């Protein structure tokens, strides 16, 4: 491997890592804030990718723009899902387990709905910039991958700014940190959780579209994506947006590094090996759990 190839591998890794990060952020927030492990998170990502694909095929709408069409549906869908499915079990004794079972069911339903309405074959985005690359010196940036990575970075930035800077975003954090005090000062927990869930689902959709620029997807793909989501979130600290984003990049980097320095077949061994090491040293992830 020459130096250029090594760097090229790192670039590839970072780009996919950014997308893992975005997929992780929404999952992490819902887990950290509401103790809901949303197994259907990746299924919503796949759903987002399919909807964007449908818009692309039917109206020639670029998936990046397609996202803005899909966004309200995903956001609203997430809110409805929270209101009528998650909220009623929020008082269950073991919300983590009940939510997992419930959302696992959602994932299966979404998967089968996609299969029924579309078909189970794999899909890929084909846009005007597919198969084109930007060359910076000796490095190649495939345009779809680059667009996907930028979408992911943008999505994470928007979420971060929303949580840190807006009134509603702060109210979200407040109600996760201290729900009772939040209620005392007029924050409606149910409404705020609905918003949070809607945002998480929307961010999953964006992540799914970004993934669609890199990978092909079929109704079953979410199982694979979910593994990476769990990885990123556990490494980044549950509920920690910045940590999750960094963990995504880190996993991407590890992927890229092992792609560069070891035979390709070692990628997963190396990635997971390093992860296990990190978790042995820091069992709660690289970054503290935080909301």
């Amino acid at each position, binding site marked *: *491997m020459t130096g250029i*190839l090594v760097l090229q591998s790192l670039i590839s890794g970072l780009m996919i890592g950014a997308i893992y990060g975005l997929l992780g952020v929404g999952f992490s927030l819902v887990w950290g804030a509401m103790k809901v492990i949303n197994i259907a998170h990746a299924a919503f990502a796949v759903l987002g990718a399919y909807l964007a694909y449908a818009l692309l095929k039917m109206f020639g709408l670029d998936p990046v723009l397609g996202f803005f069409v899909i966004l309200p549906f995903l956001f609203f869908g997430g809110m409805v899902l929270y209101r009528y499915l998650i909220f009623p079990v929020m008082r269950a004794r073991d919300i983590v387990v009940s939510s997992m079972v419930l959302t696992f069911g959602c994932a299966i339903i979404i998967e089968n709905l996609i*299969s029924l309405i579309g078909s*189970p074959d*794999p899909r890929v985005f084909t846009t005007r910039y597919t198969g084109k690359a930007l060359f910076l010196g000796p490095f*190649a940036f495939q345009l779809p991958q680059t667009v996907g990575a930028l979408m992911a970075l943008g999505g994470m930035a928007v979420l971060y700014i929303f949580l840190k800077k807006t009134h509603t975003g702060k109210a979200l954090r407040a109600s996760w940190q201290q729900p009772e005090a939040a209620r005392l000062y007029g924050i409606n927990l149910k409404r705020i959780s609905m918003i949070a869930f809607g945002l998480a689902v929307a961010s999953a959709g964006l992540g799914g579209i970004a993934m669609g620029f890199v990978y092909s997807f079929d109704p079953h793909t979410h199982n694979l994506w979910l593994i990476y989501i769990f990885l990123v979130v556990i490494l980044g600290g549950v509920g920690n947006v910045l940590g999750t984003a960094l963990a995504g990049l880190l996993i991407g980097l590890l992927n890229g590094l092992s*792609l560069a320095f070891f*035979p390709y077949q070692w990628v997963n061994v190396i990635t997971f090996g390093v992860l296990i090491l990190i978790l042995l040293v820091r069992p709660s992830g690289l970054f503290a759990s935080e909301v």
Partner: protein
Amino acid sequence: MKGFKAAGILALGMAMILMGSGLSVAAKPILIGGSLPLTGKFAETAKWIERGYRYWAEEINKKGGLLGRPVKLIIYDDESNASKAVTYAEKAITVDKVDLLFGGYPGTAARAVMPVAEKYKKVYVSMGGHMKSFSQGYTYSFGGPPLMGEWWYLGFIDWMKTIPEKDRPKRAAVYTMNNPIGASLLDSMKAMEKELGIKIVINEKYNLPLPDATPLIMKAKQMKCDILFSNGFFADGVMTMRAAKALNYNPKAIVQGVGSVIPAWTKELGKDGDYVFSGTALHNKLKFPGNKKLNEVVKKRWGLPAYPVYFGFGYCWMQTLQQGVEGAKSLDQTKIRDWLKSHEVHTIAGNFKFDKRGLPKPYNYLTQVIDGKVELIWPLSVRTHDPVYPKPHWK
């Protein structure tokens, strides 16, 4: 008394209507059972196999059945789980007491069911699980036809021999997915260096999912490889093709493992999927009797231009089983087995004579995607289109 008589006539009438289609009510149906992954990750292909099976049953029942008895399929859904496939195979044999087994899918499930078939002495016609599954000494299992990674590039190698040596590629980049199918595809390439004089310069495996194919293509370009073997599935195959285009990498030929034979390849990749070579054990453009009719049926029922390969496989495995039963004139499994081992069967995939392991003579057809259609290139006798070689540069 009168009412009783009327009721009797009515019942008789009903029975006659039931028999109307020429079926004999007296004949107990022949039960053919097993499982297919009708849900889960293999569902897409399995649904086509199921359709192939069901169409075969429909056709034979119309003709008066098998050995004069109607056939009835009992198809369980193993949810893409090979161990469930084993459970359902046992259930079909011991609980449903089926007369015949049908082949499961994919290779992992077929490989797992083969010992069960052997244990209960049931003829099992399936794609098998590559060479390993046929070298276990099973006597009741048949690959009729099998799907053999080890044979995958036979057609390609034979065809390449017809290209003058100076025009052949010299340096190969081989990227293979790290799983059993990838490994069996690699086995198929062993003859490459010896018989064609193509040097394998890069030989690497990758894990799925592949994060990005850019470095792979970059390396192949740097090492001046003029043929690319992408021994992978659809997802990584697509990534590899698109990276090759983006980096304007123009080898003389691109050979793709198993991703390019599914309809999504041409549908999703469009022109970028063109000129890719691959292999197949069965194809809807083959001239063997039956293919034309199947294409018409699929066109009428599902609006596809021609039958998908797994529809054909399902139908074809049933053809083999059917000929075994009709040849043996019995449902005695050992008699069926012995007949199949000593006679030639005629299927839509070709004419096969099975050896001791239950395999036909090694064969595979070379295909190339041309103008969005999968065309047969080799052997010459089945050719539907002239090959496009060397591959035109990316536009």
